[in-house]
């Protein structure tokens, strides 16, 4: 059977859908093997066989390999695929690790590369001694062991968790030259498995006077957040597993609260207590840290929701394109409100847009991978992505965002958090040499 290739022999065979070489997404559909051949290579070279090499037996094909570890770790040739650490000397302040989006693909963040923020180090919790208390405005306060929770009916779902401070370097008045890991690395996505919080609250019996709950961790700061009770009855989960294995210590072992779509800090790790209350605590995190000073006087607080966002992971700073030819633009989109319905990509700084292919299935409140075929002609371009969700929300341009939310007066350190909840469009400038840098467009 003759297999029709979707790869164009000539550039003109695939319809250009937007300026500077963006091609119709049909060039990607169902052609994963062929697409892989396109990525990062000039089609011309591949087609003509230029640069061909004699294929030989390598040493690893001629000898025994190494022993099998009980828990496998990445290839020594993939040692660069790691998180960046914001407090490597473990000074008395928060420790952050950021996900290397530019070196990953698909929609699930591996557990070892999931971002973490811990405020007094990572507690080493013995699950046999851990207790989880539900009390306050309930008919029956109850204490659960980890073993008891493992016997409950469970659900699994993918969900992104994103720090409310992710992407905030883009509040800078000038584009900070940093890679996608530094700019957007405080967001990750995993499948989590656990017990619906609503089930446990049913067992306790909710007092109708309860409007909020506070969630508290067993870590040193006893981190506490206030959450509207409606979220507990909607899709909150007591998560015990992440990507199929027990939670990593940095992500909350032995259990964490998962509030799909809500800012990361609220997804309380090392969860030991939930108390139903009539009004919020306005904890340190709600009174100062996760608030957004506005240009004119007032500040937003109790923001909770992470709004629709997308960014291109490849090409991106450090992932240069080098030679003219075909590339796949790849990126991540997500919304705290629901499903991603559309991602548009521009290669001319927003003058014209083409619709990207979304990797199916698209899950609510989870990373959605988008892909866009692109033929780069070697001239400078500006790449952007813009996402829509099923609530009709869409990413603002940076200019629109700044008009509403303002920007800083001076360039901050890239690791500083001078405001929160930034979700406008990110722009990557590609120069004539193929070097990719952060830009405002």
């Amino acid at each position, binding site marked *: 059977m003759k297999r029709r290739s979707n790869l164009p022999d000539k550039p003109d065979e695939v319809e250009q859908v937007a300026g500077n070489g963006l091609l119709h997404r049909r060039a990607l559909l169902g052609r994963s093997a062929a697409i892989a051949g396109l990525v990062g290579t000039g089609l011309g070279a591949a087609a003509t066989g230029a640069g061909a090499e004699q294929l030989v037996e390598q040493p690893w094909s001629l000898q025994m390999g190494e022993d099998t570890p009980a828990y496998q770790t990445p290839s020594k040739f993939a040692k660069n695929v790691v998180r960046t650490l914001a407090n490597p000397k473990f000074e008395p302040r928060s420790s952050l690790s950021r996900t290397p989006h530019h070196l990953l693909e698909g929609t699930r963040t591996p557990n070892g590369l999931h971002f973490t923020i811990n405020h007094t180090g990572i507690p080493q919790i013995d699950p046999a001694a851990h207790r989880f208390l539900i009390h306050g405005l309930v008919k029956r306060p109850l204490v659960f062991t980890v073993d008891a929770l493992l016997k409950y009916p469970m659900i699994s779902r993918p969900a992104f968790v994103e720090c409310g401070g992710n992407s905030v370097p883009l509040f800078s008045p000038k584009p900070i030259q940093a890679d996608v890991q530094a700019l957007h690395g405080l967001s990750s996505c995993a499948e989590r498995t656990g017990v619906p919080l609503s089930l446990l609250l049913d067992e306790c019996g909710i007092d109708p006077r309860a409007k909020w709950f506070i969630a508290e961790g067993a870590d040193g700061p006893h981190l506490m957040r206030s959450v509207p009770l409606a979220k507990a009855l909607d899709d909150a989960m007591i998560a015990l597993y992440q990507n199929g294995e027990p939670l990593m210590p940095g992500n909350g072992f032995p259990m964490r609260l998962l509030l799909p779509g809500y800012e990361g800090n609220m997804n309380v790790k090392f969860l030991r207590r939930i108390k139903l209350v009539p009004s919020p605590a306005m904890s340190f995190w709600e009174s100062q840290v996760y608030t957004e000073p506005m240009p004119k006087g007032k500040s937003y607080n109790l923001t909770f929701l992470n709004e629709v966002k997308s960014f291109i992971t490849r090409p991106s700073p450090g992932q240069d394109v080098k030679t003219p030819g075909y590339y796949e633009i790849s990126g991540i989109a997500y919304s705290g409100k629901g499903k991603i319905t559309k991602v548009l990509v521009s290669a001319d700084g927003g003058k014209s847009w083409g619709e990207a292919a979304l990797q199916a299935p698209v899950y609510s409140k989870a990373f959605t991978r988008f892909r866009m075929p692109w033929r780069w002609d070697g001239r400078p371009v500006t790449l952007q992505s813009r996402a829509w969700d099923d609530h009709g929300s869409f990413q603002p341009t940076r200019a629109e965002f700044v008009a509403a939310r303002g920007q800083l007066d001076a360039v901050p*350190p890239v690791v500083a958090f001078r405001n929160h909840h930034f979700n406008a469009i990110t722009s990557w400038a590609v120069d004539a040499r193929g070097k990719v840098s952060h830009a405002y467009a």
Partner: protein
Amino acid sequence: MPMRERLFAALLCLSLSASATAFAAGLGSPNLGKPVSSADMAHWDIEILADGTGLPAGEGTAAQGALIFATKCSACHGDGGRGTPQALSGQPAPPIIIRDVQLKGIDASRTTIANYWPYAPPLFDYIRRAMPWNEPRSLSDHEVYALTAYILAEGKVIDTKLVLNARTLPKVEMPNRNGFLPRFPELMPH
């Protein structure tokens, strides 16, 4: 479909569609939680609500707090809470606690407890649950009231002589009390 399979399919549907409530109500919840008395949970029952609900007995003043701050807090927060050189340079560091700055624009680094927090009781809550950084929950309630008084007095929010306790702390009027609005009012409980 045989009855057992149908029952299994129904169960699967219920649990997978996150109809946990229906599962619990219709088929009996596992009920593996253990009842717990108020006395047994007292040591964990530490949150203070914004209105001061939960504040314990005890009291303290700014003068007492200054001494405690010098021994237990200034190593990380700088002399008198005025920041370490690292913090003052704008780099990530333990927060500057006392700072004579005004809110300006969107720069959150200009927010302080005194010029920004809408309520005073959460300050007691945070010090008691989280501080000192390397020894949380080591402070007595008296010490926490004293440190709260010190920070609020240095920030010119309260009189330096005021004795803070469960009665006086909720009455402290924070200057930025009306400085906030929720980003998504529809998410707020009514």
